[in-house]
């Protein structure tokens, strides 16, 4: 019977469950970045607004990448519920800090799936996740650099700080 399950699906069922959770996490991140984009857009923080609109799109792409991966390997991808999106922030700095926290949580979650895939000898998922690990290290670096700008320009008007952020 086990061999039959194997022929129907080339990824491990437990890993598939974790990947489905990851889809939900990426979609939640996308929704969360959209809220941040709106907050910046309303305050004419042009670079930040562009940055977060783009992040929102990228997170959706990540979700879709995992979504099609699961189905391509004979599993069942699940379209997730996205609830409790926070639209309320106290400052631009807090927006970026929340972003970094979110990225760190995603990195940890990817590591957890990677470990499980390894433990279950699910080589297909292990290789698939390598792209995500590289991506996460870049994402975290981007957010940390922006937070460094805040430290360097402490006390300056928000719009001036915003103008210092790297344009995409």
């Amino acid at each position, binding site marked *: 019977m086990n*061999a*039959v399950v194997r022929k129907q*699906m*080339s990824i491990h069922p*437990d890993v598939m469950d974790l990947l489905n959770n990851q889809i939900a996490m990426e979609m939640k991140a996308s929704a969360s970045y959209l809220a941040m984009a709106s907050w910046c857009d309303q305050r004419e923080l042009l670079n930040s607004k562009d940055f977060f609109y783009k992040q929102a799109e990228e997170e959706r792409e990540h979700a879709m990448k995992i979504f099609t991966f699961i189905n391509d390997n004979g599993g069942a991808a699940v379209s997730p519920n996205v609830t409790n999106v926070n639209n309320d922030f106290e400052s631009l700095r807090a927006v970026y800090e929340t972003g970094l926290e979110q990225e760190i949580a995603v990195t940890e979650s990817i590591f957890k799936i990677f470990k499980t895939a390894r433990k279950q000898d699910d080589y297909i998922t292990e290789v698939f996740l390598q792209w995500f690990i590289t991506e996460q290290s870049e994402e975290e670096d981007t957010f940390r650099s922006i937070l460094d700008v805040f430290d360097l320009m402490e006390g300056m008007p928000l719009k001036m700080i915003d103008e210092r952020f790297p344009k995409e």
Partner: protein
Amino acid sequence: MNYESDIEYCYQIKQATFCKYVLITPSKEVQLTFPQMLELRRKIYDLTTFNTLNEIINTDNFVLLFVADKQHLIYLDIPQLLKLKEEIELFFLDFNPVLV
């Protein structure tokens, strides 16, 4: 107490052909494809989390569940629900990728 052995015969999963499975219920046999099987697995796992189980016990004490793309409706009380979860876990156990 022989309720355990009664449950044994309540819900079972068997493999029919290469990609057909059968869910044997007390009243009928339901044919399942692999995607339908995965959907059943997902639903049963959702229903057997601590919170959901608690909620079921505190309300109806049973669940009605659509299976096989909503072609069949099955009735599960708590022991049956837990037994079916075990059956599904067993079915997906020992996933060993084949090295070609």
